[in-house]
């Protein structure tokens, strides 16, 4: 994997994530910067994608995630991949702390929501979660291990970002999610030339 963009969200509190982030059309919720992390602003479905680069068709989105413990099936903290500029069109993963079915993969096609896959894995706030789309393969991961994987062919292009789902409603303060140290990238192996230009390879050269 190669990181193509990253954001540690280390900046002053704000009601937006900044210039490189674009709210997904059609989802009513928004995101804030709070205490150097990204946090949901409203308790409502929300998606936002990193628009500072042009994303390859195959990409991933990952971050340290946290979520309150009161989410149920399909809801929680997560990611969107192949997030289209069109309204509510993307693949989405959600992670919550419910006892079963707490890792979900779904799709939204012009607002039509279809639940594609579900699995169960206990996780702790701050763990690294990741959502991959590679060809027609979708993989939701926790701490590097694949929890849910399936195949879907609906969407072929789009952007990488964050996703949040909750059905409680606007104004509720008891449900929220947090992301930190976000990274998006592709599945290419870093080139030798790139590595040789890095300090790390210079160290290796010294050893030899």
């Amino acid at each position: 994997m190669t990181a193509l963009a990253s954001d540690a969200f280390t900046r002053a509190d704000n009601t937006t994530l900044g210039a490189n982030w674009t709210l997904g059309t059609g989802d009513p919720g928004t995101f804030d910067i709070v205490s150097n992390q990204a946090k949901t602003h409203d308790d409502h479905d929300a998606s936002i994608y990193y628009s500072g680069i042009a994303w390859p068709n195959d990409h991933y989105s990952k971050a340290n995630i946290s979520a309150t413990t009161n989410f149920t099936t399909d809801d929680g903290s997560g990611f969107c991949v192949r997030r289209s500029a069109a309204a509510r069109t993307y693949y989405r993963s959600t992670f919550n702390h419910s006892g079963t079915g707490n890792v979900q993969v779904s799709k939204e096609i012009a607002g039509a929501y279809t639940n594609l896959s579900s699995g169960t894995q206990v996780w702790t706030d701050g763990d690294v979660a990741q959502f991959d789309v590679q060809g027609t393969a979708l993989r939701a991961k926790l701490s590097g291990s694949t929890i849910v994987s399936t195949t879907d062919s609906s969407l072929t292009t789009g952007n990488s970002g964050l996703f949040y789902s909750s059905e409680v409603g606007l104004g509720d303060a008891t449900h929220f999610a947090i992301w930190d140290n976000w990274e998006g990238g592709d599945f290419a192996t870093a080139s030798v030339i790139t590595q040789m230009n890095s300090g790390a390879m210079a160290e290796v050269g010294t050893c030899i």
Partner: protein
Amino acid sequence: MTLSIYAMPIVGSGTAHDGRRPAYRDSVFPTLTWSQFDYGNEPWCLVGIADIPTDTDTTLRAQTQVIAIPTNLDQTIGSGPLAQVRSDLEAVNMPGTWVQASNTWRDVVQFIGAVCQFAQRFQGMAAGRWFTGGITLATTFGSLPQAVRTALAATATSFGFDTSGITGAATLRAILLSAGQQYLATQPPLILAGTTL
């Protein structure tokens, strides 16, 4: 991990509070690891469930709308269930007349998965249904609405398929049969609930 495969209806309107999902997800297998291939916007899907308990499997098999696939996918279908397999597929507007007694159950679920992928791409492009308003597998391409014809051709092109068979006289059955076969010949393996079919 053992994968059990079932065909069943999809329920749900697709809204946030009523997402499209396998018909018995909530009532029979809410706690299990599963995934589905939806047949695009058609009301039907192929579901894979990992390590399903025996009693849950029994409950699912008892549902009249559920078709259970044998766990041993490499077993040939044989002449006994052949007619039923064909009619079950055709009943949900999936080409079924190609199935022979010598085919394995893996051949069948791979084909279903492949045609589902084709339907999903169509869904992503056009967000519509094929089998509505009297359209059946026997309907010819030339008699489909123009928007459907355009999207069908674009769907095939998006996969890099040979589209020479998509002519005015070609039936939807022939087009979907070709799409399924070309998908299996050219695309990556299908993964259902973490298992490669």
